[in-house]
C-alpha cells in the first residue's frame, strides 16, 4: 500500500478527525507547559497533565457513554445533571448519618442506594418516552427541573460534607499508582462495550434509532430497548455523581453536575454519533469527552482567560454541527462537489421523500 493510499484510508476513518483534534489540542500545550507529556511518580501516585485530564474528565466520560446509547435510540436525556446531583446527595447523606464514616460496608450501602435511585430515574425517563410516547426532550425536561429540587431536598439545601477515606477513593483516591476513577471508567467502558457489542443490544439499538418502523416490522421490542438505554444512562450518571461528590467529599444539590448534560451531548456529537439516532460510536464519545476536558485544561495552561472557555465551547458546538449538516456542506462545498461529478443525491431518494410529507396532527 502506498503512502498516499494509507493516508487516505486513515483520513477516511471516522475517528480520524476527532483523534486529530485531540492530538492537536494536546500538542498546543507543549510550548506553554514544557513537561506536558511527562508523568512522574510521587508518593506512589502518578502525576502529570495527562493523568489529571483523565481524572477530571472521568465523570463526563461516564455520562457521555450513557448518553450515547440514549441518543442512538433516537432520544436524548436532559436529566443526567439532575441525576448526578441526586446520586451524590443521597450517597453523602447515607454516609454522613453513619457512626463510622469509614466503614466500607456503610459506603457500599450508600453506593448501592444511590445507584438504585439513579436506575429508577432512568426507568422513569424511559417509561415516559417508550410507554407514554412523550418526546424525549420534553420527557426528560421534567426530571431535569424537578431533580435539582429533589437533590436539594435530600441535602436539605445544605452542602453535605463527608469525612470518609473509603468514600473519597472512587473520585479522588489512588490505586496501583493510578487515580481510582480511571479504573471505574475503564470498567464501565469495558462493560458497556461488552453489553453492546458482545450481546445484540448494540445492533438492536442502532436498528431502532436508524429506522423505528422497520424495527417494529422486524419484531424488535423497541420499547424494552429504549427503557434499557435510559436506565443505563441513569446508572452512568449515578456513578458520575458518586465520583463528583467523592472528589470533593461533599454533595451540593444545586451545582453538582451543572451543565454536564450539555457537555455530554457535545461529546457524543463530536464523537461522530448523529443526534438523529442510529449508528453509535462509544470510542468516539470517549475521545469527544477527552477533547472537551483537554480544551478546558488547555485554556488554563495557555493563559487564555478561563472565562472564554464557554465561548470556545459554543464555537466548537456550532462548527461541529455545521460540518455534520449536509445542507451546510452542500452550500459551502457544493460548488466543488458539483464540478467533480453529477449530483450525488439519488433520484430514488427524492422520489421516495416526496410522498412522505405528512399531516402532523
Amino acid at each position, binding site marked *: 500500500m502506498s503512502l498516499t493510499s494509507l493516508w487516505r484510508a486513515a483520513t477516511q476513518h471516522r475517528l480520524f478527525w476527532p483523534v486529530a483534534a485531540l492530538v492537536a489540542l494536546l500538542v498546543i500545550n507543549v510550548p506553554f507547559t514544557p513537561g506536558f507529556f511527562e508523568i512522574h511518580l510521587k508518593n506512589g501516585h502518578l502525576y502529570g497533565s495527562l493523568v489529571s485530564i483523565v481524572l477530571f474528565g472521568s465523570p463526563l466520560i461516564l455520562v457521555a457513554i450513557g448518553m450515547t446509547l440514549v441518543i442512538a435510540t433516537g432520544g436524548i436525556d436532559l436529566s443526567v445533571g439532575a441525576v448526578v446531583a441526586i446520586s451524590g446527595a443521597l450517597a453523602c447523606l447515607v454516609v454522613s448519618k453513619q457512626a463510622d464514616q469509614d466503614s466500607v460496608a456503610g459506603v457500599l450501602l450508600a453506593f448501592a442506594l444511590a445507584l438504585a435511585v439513579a436506575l429508577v430515574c432512568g426507568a422513569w425517563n424511559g417509561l415516559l418516552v417508550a410507554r407514554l410516547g412523550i418526546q424525549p426532550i420534553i420527557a426528560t425536561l421534567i426530571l431535569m427541573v424537578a431533580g435539582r429540587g429533589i437533590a436539594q431536598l435530600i441535602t436539605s439545601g445544605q452542602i453535605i460534607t463527608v469525612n470518609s477515606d473509603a468514600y473519597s477513593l472512587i473520585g479522588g483516591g489512588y490505586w496501583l499508582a493510578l487515580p481510582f476513577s480511571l479504573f471505574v471508567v475503564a470498567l464501565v467502558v469495558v462493560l458497556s462495550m461488552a453489553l453492546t457489542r*458482545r*450481546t*445484540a*443490544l448494540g*445492533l*438492536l439499538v*442502532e*436498528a431502532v434509532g*436508524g*429506522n423505528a*418502523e*422497520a*424495527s*417494529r*416490522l*422486524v*419484531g*424488535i*421490542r423497541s420499547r424494552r*430497548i429504549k427503557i434499557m438505554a435510559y436506565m443505563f444512562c441513569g446508572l452512568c450518571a449515578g456513578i458520575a455523581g458518586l465520583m463528583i461528590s467523592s472528589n470533593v467529599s461533599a454533595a451540593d444539590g444545586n451545582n453538582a453536575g451543572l451543565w454536564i448534560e450539555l457537555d455530554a451531548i457535545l461529546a457524543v456529537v463530536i464523537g461522530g454519533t448523529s443526534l438523529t439516532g*442510529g*449508528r453509535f460510536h462509544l470510542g468516539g464519545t470517549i475521545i469527544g469527552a477527552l477533547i472537551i476536558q483537554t480544551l478546558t485544561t488547555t485554556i488554563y495552561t495557555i493563559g487564555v482567560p478561563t472565562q472564554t472557555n464557554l465561548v470556545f465551547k459554543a464555537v466548537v458546538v456550532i462548527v461541529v454541527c455545521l460540518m455534520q449538516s449536509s445542507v451546510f456542506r452542500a452550500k459551502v462545498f457544493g460548488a466543488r462537489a458539483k464540478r467533480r461529478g*453529477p449530483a450525488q443525491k*439519488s*433520484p*430514488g431518494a*427524492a*422520489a*421516495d421523500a*416526496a*410522498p*412522505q*410529507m*405528512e*399531516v402532523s*396532527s
Partner: protein
Amino acid sequence: MAEPRPVLEMTGIVKEFSGTRALSDVDFRLFPGEIHALLGENGAGKSTLIKVLTGVHPLDGGTVVLEGRPVRITSPLQAQQAGISTVYQEVNLCQNLSVAENILIGREPVAAGRIRWKELRRRAAQLVTRFGLDLDVSAPLGSHPLAVQQLVAIIRAVGSGNPAAADEGDAAAGTRVLILDEPTSSLDRDEVEELFALMRRLRQDGVAILFVSHFLDQIYEVCDRMTVLRNGALVGEHLVADLDQVNLVKLMIGKDLDELEELSEHHTEPDTSEPFLKAEGLSRAGGIAPFDLEVRAGEVLGLAGLLGSGRTELARLLFGADTSDGGKVYIGGDQAALREPNDAIGRGVAFLSENRRTEGLVPDLTVRENIILALQAARGWTRPVPASQRDELVAKYIAALDIRPADPEAKTGSLSGGNQQKVLLARWLLTQPKLLILDEPTRGIDVGAKAEIQKLVVSLSEEGVAVVYISAELEEVLRLSHTMGVLRDRRLVARMANGPDVTAGRVLEIIASGEHQ
C-alpha cells in the same frame, strides 16, 4: 367535430432520473370544463407527470402550452400563479387554524396591519357557500372530518389563483387547471358524493380538473375523459364513454390477453391438509372489508388487484402490522391475537413490505447487520447469533441470492433496489418462516432480479413454505400461485384455485367489475 382548444397541452414530455426514464415522450392534454382521469399502476409515471406539471421536478424534454402560450414552470408557486392548483391526498393545510384562515391565510384582509377578522370570516363563508357547502368557518379545521378538510383544500386551491378575484368572492376566477391527486382514498361513500358535487360545479365554471383515483367506479361516475400511462409511456387517451372497464384494466396492466394466457402455468395440487393460516371475517375500518382467507403449507396464494384495492392492507392485517377491528386469525390451528408484528413472527410469519426504504431497510447498517436483524430480534438481545454462525449464514444467503456487491460490510443504503430487496428477503429466509408474505417483491427492480425472486418463490413453496404473493403484475401472480384472491375497492371479491379455467381475461374481468361467478 371541432374540439375546443385545450387549456393545457403537454407534448413529448421526457423526465429522467439519473439515466432511468420515468417519462418518455408522453403527450397529455386537458380541455376546459372537463374532468380528466389520469390512470396507471405504480411506476406508470402518474405522479412524475403531475410533479413536472406543477414545477416540483424540472422537465428534461417536451413542451407545455397553457392557454395557447408555451410556459416553463419551475416552482409550485409559479404553477399556482399560472392558474394550476393542486390538492394532494394528504391534506396540506393546518389543522390548528380555523377553516376561514386555512382558506385565506397569506391573503387575509388587513387594515393598517391589523387582520379584519369579521371580514375574513365573511369572505371565507362566502366562498364556502359559493361551493354549496354549509360550514362553520370559525371552527378549527382539525375538528372537521377529513372529507371536509379535503373540500376546504380545494376551495383554497381554486380560490388562490387570483387573489383579486378571490377577494371579490369569485371563487374559481384564477384557476384554470385543478389537480386532485387521490383525494378520495380515505373518504366514505357519502363524502365522495360531496366531493363529486363540488367537482361538477367547478366543471360547470369551466375549470379543467385532473383527477387521480384508484377506484374505477368513481372514474366512470365522474370523469369525461381519461389518459392511461404505463411504464412511463402513454398508452392512450379515451373518452370514458368509449372504453369499458375490462378494456381499461387491460390497458393499465398491459400485455395483450393472448400473451398472458401463454405465460400462465397452472400447478394446482389438491391439498386437504389443515390450513397453516386461516382468517375469518378479518377487517379494518378504512383499510379492508371483512374477508375470509386460507393458506396451506407449500401453497402460493396470489393476490391480484389494482393499486389501492386493499392488497397491502390485507397483508398487514395477517402480519399484525396493523391491528384488526374484527374477525379472527388462526395460525397452525390456534387462534392468534395479532396485536404487534411480534405476535405473527413468533408463529412463523414473515412479511416483506412494499416500502423497502421506509419499512424495511435500516440504511445505515451493513448488509450483514440488515440480514441478521430478524433472526436476532427473535432471539432477543441477550442471545446474539454467534459470529461464526452469523458470518456463515450471511455468506450463504449472499451467495444463494446473488447479492451484489457480495460484501457483508457494504452499507445497504448504497445498494441497488434489486439487491436491497434480496437483502430483505435473506433477512426473513434466515428465520425459516412457515408463511412468507411478499408485498410487491418485484417492483422497481431489474428484470434479472425479478426472475430470480420468482424462482425463489417456487422453490420455497416446494420446500413447504406457504407464500402470500402480492403483485400488480397479473402475469406474475398467475404464473406463481396455486390459489388466487382478487381484490377490488378494499374488498376481497373472489377466491379460486388457479387452474386452466383461470385465465388472465377472467381475472381482469373480476378486477374490472368486481363480480365473480
